[in-house]
């Protein structure tokens, strides 16, 4: 297993990620095939919510990944600022649109679930609001990356903001405990074990694994695209100014 340091070489990373990609895609396809059948067909309807409980199998993995993605970006930001790992900012930049997509999916599925259960698409309660803030932060970070023309510098600046914004993650996680709100408290990761019956917990776990595999596949593919994009950019710079890449003293 190559260490993180040896992956600092983009070519080695491209080789390894190229080998992982098809496996991640196959794992995602297989897990989705199993998970969707379990979630939509074999799992029982809820005694109160009926069949609309099945939205949970999309909603919960989405929001878990939305927060997990930001955590991965925060670790990448540490890698950029502390260890100066050359691929850390590529990883953070590639993860941001995915995180935004999962956050959006979580908000939309939550709204669709909220309409029959709570009787409204949207309430301004702590968890929903802090999740909306998470979406705005993802979008702001993506805008910040686009604003700089030098990708390495953009990566370091964005890393500072990622770490500052990380304060939102514990706020989201514990918002349902701190404030008394409409959104239900944690039911999987909690003291005393999950409060969901195993007939629903297993499909949920399979769906979570499927979403995670999908995320790994998309993340690696986006990182590879970003590396190639930077290579093209460097090649264009060299073609335009043959001296552009001479070592600077700064």
């Amino acid at each position, binding site marked *: 297993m190559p260490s993180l340091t040896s992956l600092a070489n983009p070519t080695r990373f491209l080789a390894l990620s190229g080998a992982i990609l098809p496996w991640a895609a196959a794992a995602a396809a297989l897990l989705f095939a199993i998970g969707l059948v379990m979630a939509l067909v074999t799992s029982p309807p809820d005694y109160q919510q009926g069949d609309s409980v099945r939205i949970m199998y999309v909603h919960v993995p989405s929001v878990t990944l939305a927060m997990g993605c930001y955590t991965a970006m925060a670790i990448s930001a540490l890698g950029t600022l502390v260890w100066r790992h050359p691929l850390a900012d590529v990883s953070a930049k590639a993860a941001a649109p995915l995180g935004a997509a999962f956050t959006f999916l979580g908000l939309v599925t939550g709204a669709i679930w909220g309409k029959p259960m709570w009787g409204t698409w949207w309430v301004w309660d702590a968890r929903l609001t802090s999740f909306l803030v998470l979406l705005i932060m993802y979008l702001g970070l993506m805008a910040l990356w686009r*604003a700089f023309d030098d990708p390495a510098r953009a990566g370091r600046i964005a890393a500072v903001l990622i770490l500052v914004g990380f304060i939102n993650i514990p706020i989201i996680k514990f918002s349902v405990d701190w404030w008394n709100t409409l959104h239900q408290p944690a039911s999987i990761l909690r003291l005393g074990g999950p409060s969901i019956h195993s007939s629903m917990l297993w499909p949920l776990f399979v769906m979570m694994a499927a979403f995670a595999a999908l995320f790994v596949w998309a993340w690696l593919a986006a990182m590879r695209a970003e590396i190639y994009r930077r290579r093209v950019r460097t090649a264009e710079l060299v073609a335009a100014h043959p001296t552009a890449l001479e070592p600077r003293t700064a």
Partner: protein
Amino acid sequence: MISFLAIVRQTVRLELRAGGGAAVALIFFLAVVTAVPFGVGPDLKLLARIGPAILWVAALLAALLGLDRLFGADREDGSLDLIIVSGEPLALYALGRAVGHWLATGLPIVVAAPILGLLLNLDPPAMGAVALTLLAGSPALTLIGTVGAALTAGLPRGGLLIAILVLPLTVPVLIFGVSATSGALSDPEPFLAPFLFLCACSLAALALAPFVAAAALRLALE
């Protein structure tokens, strides 16, 4: 310490003079508060109820104004480079800019808020509560804004971007500010707890923001 005071004094002077942001921020504050009754209608009861929240949101928006000039001018004329090589702590410089910016724009808004409260049909206790919570919370708004200004210091046009980056980070300040204000006015809701959280936001921002801003400035100028 002397250089810190010099930076504070210079920031205040620059913002108060012609072309500075202090008057503009205050007028913008007035303009936002004026715009709300046009939107929600002139119902005085309703305005009295949502008045504190209007003042808080307007103060938040006004605090975002002029942030791009906080370090932008120093970057353009090269003084920021000189300050970095001078060996003075960069965090102290960032703090000086933040304090000066707050004195020139934040403090006038705190003073003006009760007067604008008259327009929104607030009774005297509500005016006092808004002024008190704004006094406790507006330093946090300015300090968080300073981080945003430092992050975009390397950009020629960072103004709009700052607003997008800073607004989500100021949401907790807004929540505690408005809930402390309503806690001071109606009995069942607590006042002290959100007010202390509000003070904690300002103090934590005071302790952390100058260092984050200094790190961001260094990166922005690389």
